[in-house]
């Protein structure tokens, strides 16, 4: 049966296709493309959203130069990069570990895997709010539990410039390790059993099986997890806004927090539009790479 069967009555496939797709495309054009173009336009002006009456002047690439020369922006990018590296590394290690363990399929494993998955679905802003309570040095349970494992004395996760970045890494890991676990478990389950059976016949050791079969077959999934998480954490705003609001000082001021400050507190619309475009280009680049990898994974 050819896929373009023409029915006797009613609208043709072609008409229906357009009717079905157009509303979606129109909405996306109105709320995504148009704003994007507007942002690009704004990035070349000195517009300030809190002075709508003021004269709007084109400033060429001045905003972009200022963004790229701003020490504060680079600090923020460094903080973001540090956050990305630490959180993704931890999540991959923990997630892979959990996936390997869950793959053993012990009894009740699906119950416990669902339990582990719960934090992933919560609102990051609300998570940030109640973790503030846990990190309180005077009465929070985090300090209490940590001191259980050894006497670390009194420390302030959110107030100490050395510890605050680890606080956000910790909460992010708590939320998103299940994501990596889920993804890598799918990867593990996609490994054809005959590979292991062949290895058994060759009297391979556990370590060899892992190194030669498991790891290479799961590697695309690991890369995918890294890319997905990198894109999400680069955009990260909700959790950090609530947990530390960029403090103490600016050690946890990630890119999106800086963007919000510039755009909605200082109202430097032109400047922040330039920053937004730069961030978008970075994320777009990462996404292209992701999609290419996705194709590779799907082909297996």
């Amino acid at each position, binding site marked *: 049966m050819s896929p373009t069967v023409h029915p006797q009555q009613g609208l043709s496939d072609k008409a229906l296709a357009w009717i079905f797709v157009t509303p979606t495309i129109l909405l996306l054009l109105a709320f995504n493309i148009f704003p994007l173009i507007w942002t690009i336009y704004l990035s070349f002006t*000195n517009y300030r*959203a*809190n*002075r*709508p*009456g003021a004269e709007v002047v084109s400033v060429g690439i001045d905003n972009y130069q200022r963004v790229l020369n701003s020490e*504060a922006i680079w600090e923020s990018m460094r903080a973001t990069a540090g956050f990305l590296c630490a959180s993704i590394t931890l999540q991959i290690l923990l997630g892979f570990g959990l996936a390997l363990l869950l793959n053993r399929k012990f009894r009740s494993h699906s119950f416990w895997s669902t339990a582990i998955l719960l934090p992933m679905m919560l609102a990051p802003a609300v998570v940030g709010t109640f973790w503030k309570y846990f990190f*309180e*040095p*005077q009465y929070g349970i985090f300090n209490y539990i940590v001191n259980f494992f050894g006497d670390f004395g*009194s420390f*302030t996760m*959110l*107030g*100490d*410039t050395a510890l605050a970045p680890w606080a956000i890494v910790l909460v992010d890991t708590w939320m998103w390790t299940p994501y990596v676990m889920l993804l890598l478990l799918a990867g593990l389950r996609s490994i054809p059993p005959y590979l292991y059976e062949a290895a058994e016949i060759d009297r391979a050791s556990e370590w060899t099986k892992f190194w030669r079969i498991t790891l290479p077959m799961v590697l695309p999934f690991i890369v995918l997890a890294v890319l997905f998480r990198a894109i999400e954490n680069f955009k990260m705003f909700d959790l950090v806004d609530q947990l*530390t*609001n*960029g*403090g*103490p*000082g*600016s*050690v946890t001021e990630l890119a999106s927090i800086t963007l919000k*400050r510039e755009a*909605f*507190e*200082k*109202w*430097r619309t032109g400047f922040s539009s330039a920053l937004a475009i730069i961030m978008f280009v970075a994320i777009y680049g990462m996404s292209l790479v992701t999609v290419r990898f996705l194709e590779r994974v799907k082909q297996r």
Partner: protein
Amino acid sequence: MNLKPKLLAAVAAVAMGMSASSAFAQQKQLTLCWAAWDPANALVELSKDFTAKSGVQMKFEFVPWPNFAQRMLNELNSKGKLCDLMIGDSQWIGSAATEGHYVKLNDFFDKNNIKMADFMPATVEGYTTWPKGTKNYYALPAMGDAVAWTYRKDWFARADLQQEFKAKHGRDLAPPKTWDELKQIGQFFQGRTIDGKKVYGAALYTERGSEGITMGVTNTMYANGMRYDNPAKPYDLKGYINGPEAVAGLRFYKELFDCCTPPGHTNAYMTENLDAYKSGQVAMQMNFIAFFPGINKDPAVGGEKTGFFPMPTAKIAAAQLGGQGISVVNYSAKKDLALEYIKWFAQPAIQQKWWDAGGASAHKAVLDKPGFEKSAAYAPVYLDSMKIVKDFWQEPSYAQLLLAMQKRTHDYVIAGKGTPQEALNALEKDWTEIFKEDGKVK
């Protein structure tokens, strides 16, 4: 054919529904926007009088302080119709006047015989005028406020502590007159055990997000003689905001933070300080006088357990101004009703009730009344503080100036980055750039 009566009935029902809802809408109502704190609750009670006299229902939109400025400025910038009346922070006046968010009230005042001379001059200049000090009024002073101190009178009264302190410092354990004295008291209490619990010296303002730490450091900086800019040449900052007085003040605040605050007190503003004080963690707290009525009533630390004192002195006496004026929002559909509210609020009789309810009236009829000092335990501190207040910038670009100061001072005081001179030099550069962008400086 039976459709017609049904149709008529339906149309009639809809018409009645519509007229009922429009009649409902005509039921007079005003929305007042302010911060969510004790005085706001007092205003709710007080406004019942307005509703009784005018028939206008009052609705309130209160937002907690850390989010207040952002929410409300966002609201004004987006020409929102949520608020008819706004009790906005004194720093917003510049932006609100230039962008036309607030209604100019001069004509209204003249028509209704409301005289600015009847209000405390510091509040008139700080809360209502733009440019500052001119006779353009965009608000009515609603709530006089400044940063001051509360202290545990009951702890200070303990005989053993008194003896120990006198032996160590040669003077009585009493509310400090100078900043150095305050630091000594802070160190005296830091880490001491009282009633089986470890306590600390003082709760300071250290908040990073909105304006907290700035509202704290300015006190020590003013007291050391700092000026923001050259009095002869406005916006000329070099040597003023980063001059020796400012540096001394900032350094002192950090020393105070390092020596005498509870652990983890790194992002504290009004509610966190209240928390620390009420839970018996600190001997003293800095906070806005607006909270003093509530503290006075508190079951844990109120009444005889708490005393109040104004900002200590260093080179001069100075305190950071707080307080707000009440304005009519230009985008409101009910400006005339809103003006009615302001007319009601400005009456001396209502202002007296406002003070009694816990709001800080700025009307001279209330403040000059004999016996005012005895009307509440915190009344003398209020009067004394309002005489020494200094304010932060009210420029239209104040938000940027504030955020820069937040960042630089928090980086130094809390995160320990660099020296106070470096922090203030960086701040001077930040501010100069902001003024350049604004066209105030070449």
